[in-house]
């Protein structure tokens, strides 16, 4: 093993320790509407302008950048409470007519849980414009009340008004679908996201985003991402009121990417998340 590999390993080890340190006390918000991937939460939940498979959970219009089939698994545990945790599994494949994908997301515990199955297509209309349409099937299981299922849609757009600027919007459930369990009717959250990202160079970017969910105040999100080298990504951000401060790291190991994040809510404490992505046949 040469000297460089030893250094890389030592660095990886130190970074993993950091992850463990960051992810140990886990806590965050318990709104299923705000379930992003760790790579996005690490940068202040500014996900509408991100690209790659991690964008499936925020704005899949950014998925058009993947060059090969990718799989991603994420786990997010708010406030160290496993009953509020979210698990997700996504797969995306670039095809000739666009990038197709599917995902499963589960929130809750055995007595109450929500599972959302999603399939969608992202198409790059022009080099600076991509659009996405997604169909979601939400299945709620409440032990006392029974099961219920509903279909709703989401829609997203990303475009580049300048080569260093990406603007985007994403709308979930514009049709205001509701889900009925016995006599109880609940509105599936309609979420509107508007974001802008400035990439000063290929390594560093700053993003700002607003998120509005039905019956909640507008959330402002701010985040930065820095690719220190081809191996390590550092992220920092803040969102919401009371403020949530976020930190995140990402490690790129050949075809595997590991992402971790920590979110510190001013009142409720710390939450954390972990993600694993594998890219098939990706040329290094």
């Amino acid at each position, binding site marked *: 093993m040469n000297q460089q590999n030893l250094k890389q390993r030592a660095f990886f080890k130190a970074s993993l320790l950091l992850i463990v340190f960051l992810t140990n006390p886990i806590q965050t918000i318990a709104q299923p509407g705000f379930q992003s991937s760790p790579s996005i939460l690490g940068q202040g939940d500014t996900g509408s302008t991100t690209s790659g498979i991690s964008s499936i959970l925020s704005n899949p219009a950014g998925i058009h950048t993947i060059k090969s089939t990718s799989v991603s698994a994420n786990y997010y545990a708010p406030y160290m409470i496993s009953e509020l945790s979210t698990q997700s599994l996504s797969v995306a494949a670039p095809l000739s007519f666009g990038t197709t994908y599917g995902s499963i997301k589960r929130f809750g515990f055995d007595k109450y849980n929500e599972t959302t199955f999603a399939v969608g297509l992202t198409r790059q209309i022009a080099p*600076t414009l991509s659009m996405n349409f997604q169909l979601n099937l939400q299945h709620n299981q409440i032990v006392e009340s029974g099961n219920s299922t509903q279909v709703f849609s989401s829609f997203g757009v990303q475009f580049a008004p*300048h080569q260093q600027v990406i603007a985007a919007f994403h709308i979930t459930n514009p049709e205001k679908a509701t889900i009925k369990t016995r006599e109880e009717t609940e509105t599936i959250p309609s979420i509107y996201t508007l974001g802008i990202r400035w990439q000063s160079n290929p390594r560093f970017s700053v993003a700002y985003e607003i998120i509005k969910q039905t019956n909640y105040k*507008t959330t402002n999100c701010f985040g930065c991402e820095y690719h220190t080298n081809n191996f390590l990504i550092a992220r920092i951000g803040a969102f919401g009121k009371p403020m949530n401060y976020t930190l995140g790291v990402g490690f790129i190991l050949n075809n595997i990417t590991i992402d971790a994040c920590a979110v510190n809510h001013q009142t409720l404490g710390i939450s954390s998340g972990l993600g694993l992505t594998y890219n098939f046949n990706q040329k290094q």
Partner: protein
Amino acid sequence: MKQALLIFTIIYPMVIPAQNPVTNNAVTQQLLEYLAENDNDISENSQSIDDLIDQANTPININNINKSKLEKLWFLSDFQARELLDFIDKYQPIFSKYQLQSLNTFTPETIELLSLFVTYGKPDMIHKNYLNGNVIIKDAFDIQKAKGYQTNDSSAYLGNNHQIYSRAIIEYGNHYSTGFVIEKDPGEQFLNKNKTDFYSGFLQYKGNKLLKKVIIGDFKANFGQGLALWTGSNMSKSGSVSHIRKKGEELKRYSSTNETNFFRGIASSLAYKSIQLQTFISTRNKDARIEYDSTQNLSLITSMPQTGYHRTLNELSTRNTLKQTTYGVNINYRWKNISASAGTAFTQLDADSIQTTQTYKQLNPPTTHSQNHWLSYNYGNNNFIYFGEIAIDKDKHIATLNGFLIKPTTNVTASILYRNISTKYYSPYICTFSESTNPSGETGCFIGLHMYPIKKLETEAHIDIFKFNWLKYNIDKPSNGYEISIRSNYKITPTSELSIQYKEKEKHRNLTTDETPEYTTKTYNLKKIRLNISCQPTENWRIQLRTEKSIYQYDPLPGSSGFLSFADLHYESSNKRLSSSFRYTIFATDDYNSRIYTYENDVLYTFSIPAFYDEGSRVYFTGRYQLTDRIKLWIKAGHTWYPNKKEIGSGLQTISGNSRTNLKIQLQIKL
């Protein structure tokens, strides 16, 4: 610039294939939104837009253009019009729009815009016998029926909830044209006793010799700066730095649906060398509630509704009950760079007096017999323009307005306008540059600056300081206020633009709380900041994103704030036969005071700037499809959803439920 580009949003995507409308869309909407925010009734301004659309349908050759024809293109600033005329004079014939690129005051967008209304090359052969026709049929309605349609008592609406509109204009050669409009508002009866609620029509002859124009039927008359007589438009204050001078054709055929502000009779325009003479006489019935005192044989007007609605028996009882006669004359003299007009107008209502109960109207109560005389002037060259008007009513109360526009360098335009209107001055047709809709007693000074500090950055700023020397509606004491606006548009690339706007207004308003005595007014302050980004990534797609925040403060009451954001997608097929828009808007405001206005795309000849307040979201879709070369179809469907409401609206307009869906369908047939 804003006003110059106003019509892009409305006309460009609908009449002519879009080429690079992104920049224009981002900017032009602001004028309409500004008008709405300043309590202008946008629907009343539709005539100005209609005129431009008609103009786009019959473009004139640029080499035949003269000053009066350029006045019709009111989106051009005075400096642009003057520079263009000089350019044509010097270099004609103009063969291509690319020749106009050497004009200092014209941006590429302005040239594109102008090209909608003019043709280039040698003047066209005049076809004496061509026939042009344009027919529009529209139906608009809400899916959910309001309370007024569901009750059976005497207050119920008499008609159905459809708004039906039809308009036809036929032109024969260059001289003759005729047209008619029929319209029924939602709730009104259609074809009741073989006639609809509103109908309008005209016959027009345009000549080249002594007789320049004759209109029989409905027309509008606009003179000076609107201190004495200005109909057909309600744009009191545009907020645009380089468009503070009102301009337009003095006499113009009327083909809009505003049921209040137009004339019906005969109008003519004669011209001899540099002198023009306009005369008109109008007699028509207006809506009014009149009480008769049989003992003294006197008639008293108790109210004059301006809404044009005749939906209930009560509203119907006021329909066309008051005869109004207006006649006037205007003489205009033009010599080199000077233009001067003088005129007089008399208005008579067929009643003995008008009841005035409001305190704020006591010093200038509306009268049944009014006279107004005016003198207006305009002098300038390519670097400055000085204009103004002085008007006097029958009791010799005076109103004046003077403005100055200067262009010290090619990238800077500055303007200043001062108005002083006597508290007792009265004109039934006043529509001038003012803060208040009824500007009597208003004194104010507007200062504006429009510049390109760097090539890609356009900045426009103005401040308007005004003082009301007498009470105003909802202000029970003399007061003052100001308005500040700063807007910057940065062209990121040729197809994308970022715009930031900050506005602040401070005015007085009555304080109506239980603890405070009557006649207490307090100052309110309204701030709005807007961020807008628009982009055209491909020839077919256009995207606009906006977010806006409003903050309303009114001590000692708690303040409020509002938020609005939308994402807008526009698509047009490469063959231009199909175009469509989709927009998703979310809004959340604490109350009506922090409401936010935003422009919406609509069907041809229609535009809307709804005020959003409370919490909710709105989605709409518009589509245009060209069925054949002569037939176009428009559809608009909109759905507004308020999660926290159980009913929407008030009174007879109340809809039960938390959502409202409206549909609009329109057909255009060109003959």
